[in-house]
């Protein structure tokens, strides 16, 4: 593998509760790329995101994470974020008393009201209507998701991991998300887009497919999308999953 990658993951393994969730993940993302990671629910995509971000209880048992040539495998979340890596969480946290304008400004190296407003507009939210609102339960799930994306966009990170930014959002809003990703890329942010919606694939430069904790296919987005549609979707439908309280049901 060349050294020209912003993010390189080598043979990454992670166990939780005695179960191996990541089974030797290898990945390389070049600067400026929008890298799509597809996979059905439970394939390990979000676990990979938390592991890359350095979350507690997501310490790899084996393997390395290299960011801009530096081994960040043992760095804290804060240290990784300060190197320019961040995560838009799939289910964003709620903060009692924290206003949207303050939340967005937290991660900005050069805080400015203009950038905050620009970030809200980039996720199709009116600054006038949202700046003074609180990032709490009063916002809908979709609104919190957009605000989370705006916060990441406002940061101008080197690498943004977007964990299912499209979940819980209607099809019409997918266009907004796609435009935001393109905007991030245009500003120089490399994007790792995690999704199980293959409609998002056209916005990516490279796509990979994750299955049961492994990257099973990497390549041109359309080819990976077709493979996903042909093989993974039927698998998702056919594969029974254990349900709480015992027994099985079809997804």
């Amino acid at each position, binding site marked *: 593998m060349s050294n020209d990658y912003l993010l390189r993951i080598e043979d990454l393994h992670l166990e939780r509760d005695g179960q191996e969730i990541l089974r030797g993940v290898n990945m390389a993302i070049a600067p400026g790329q929008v890298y799509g990671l597809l996979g059905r629910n439970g394939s390990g995509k979000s676990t990979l995101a938390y592991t890359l971000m350095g979350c507690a209880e997501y310490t790899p048992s084996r393997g390395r994470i290299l960011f801009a040539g530096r081994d960040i495998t043992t760095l804290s979340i804060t240290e990784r*974020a300060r190197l320019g890596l961040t995560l838009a969480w799939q289910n964003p946290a709620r903060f*009692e*008393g*924290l206003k949207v304008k303050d939340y967005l400004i*937290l*991660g900005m190296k050069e805080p400015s009201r203009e950038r905050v407003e620009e970030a809200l507009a980039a996720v199709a939210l009116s600054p006038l209507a949202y700046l003074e609102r609180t990032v709490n339960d009063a916002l809908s799930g979709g609104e919190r998701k957009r605000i989370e994306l705006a916060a990441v966009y406002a940061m101008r990170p080197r690498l943004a991991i977007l964990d299912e930014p499209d979940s819980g959002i209607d099809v019409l809003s997918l266009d907004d998300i796609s435009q935001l990703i393109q905007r991030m890329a245009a500003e120089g942010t490399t994007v790792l887009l995690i999704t199980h919606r293959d409609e998002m694939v056209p916005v990516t430069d490279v796509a990979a497919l994750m299955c049961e904790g492994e990257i099973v296919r990497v390549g041109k987005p359309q080819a990976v999308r077709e493979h996903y549609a042909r093989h993974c979707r039927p698998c998702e439908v056919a594969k029974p999953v254990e349900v709480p309280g015992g027994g099985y049901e079809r997804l």
Partner: protein
Amino acid sequence: MSDFEAILKAYERSGGDPNFLRSSKVASLVISGNRVLGANQVPGVRIEPEEIEHGVRVKVIVEPGTRLDVPAHLCFGVIPAEGVQKILPEFEIGAGAQAEFIAHCTFPNAVNVRHLMEAHIHVGKNATMKYSETHYHGETGGVEVVPKAQVTVDEGGHYSSEFALTTGRVGKLDFDYVVDVAARGVAELTAKAYGYGNDAISVKETIRLNGEHARGLAKSRIAVRDEATSEVMGSTEGNAPFARGHVDCIEVVRDRATASAIPVVRVRDDRAYVTHEAAIGTVNKKELETLMSRGLDEETAVDVIIRGMLEG
């Protein structure tokens, strides 16, 4: 510096705007120790202070139907390092009146100061009283504050109070408010405090919903770190048909601090409905990791979360 200027400076430090205390258009009261340094009345509002040993007894009367356009400002303080201050206020909010009070209690140099307040508050029929009280106790922890209030809310009246002690040390706080609410009346009590060092916080909020359709909320937001302690008892009683009440307590604990919560809900009428929620623990991990993923270190992230909780 005159005593008046000294207390105004302390008032400003605790978050107040001294211009309100200088204005002849704003109802105000300034008390330093047991001395009344200023009392300004406006039409519809009478303020009658009386100096007593170690403190001041004061009657605040808002005439029926009065609408206060600008909140009344109250300043209570002790400037020396030691002393006792006893404030005995009696608020009478006449029927249909609407009044807001903003109080600041400041003890910036306290090493050994006791501040005792025993308030009696009557909110008349269809009247509204909003009372916010912000404290600043300096950085030594040498303050004991005992705010107690007995509040009566008549039919259709509305009483809300917010007590905040979130900057500087707490020292020892023993907060105890009791509110009786008549039919269609509303009471909202909020207490916020941030203790550290060996601060000791005790908050008791009691709301008795005695009339039909009365409503009440007893809310507390407390954070403690180091070796500070916190005990919260939020109690709401539904004593009449269709009374609705809720107790809402969140306490955040760090380091070796300890916290306890006793939410009490009591219903004496099968058509009343009272609920409670209490959460004690460290800051939410998801919130913490989210802020850290924006580049904040852990300590700063915790502070942002706690400040949000206390100021929200």
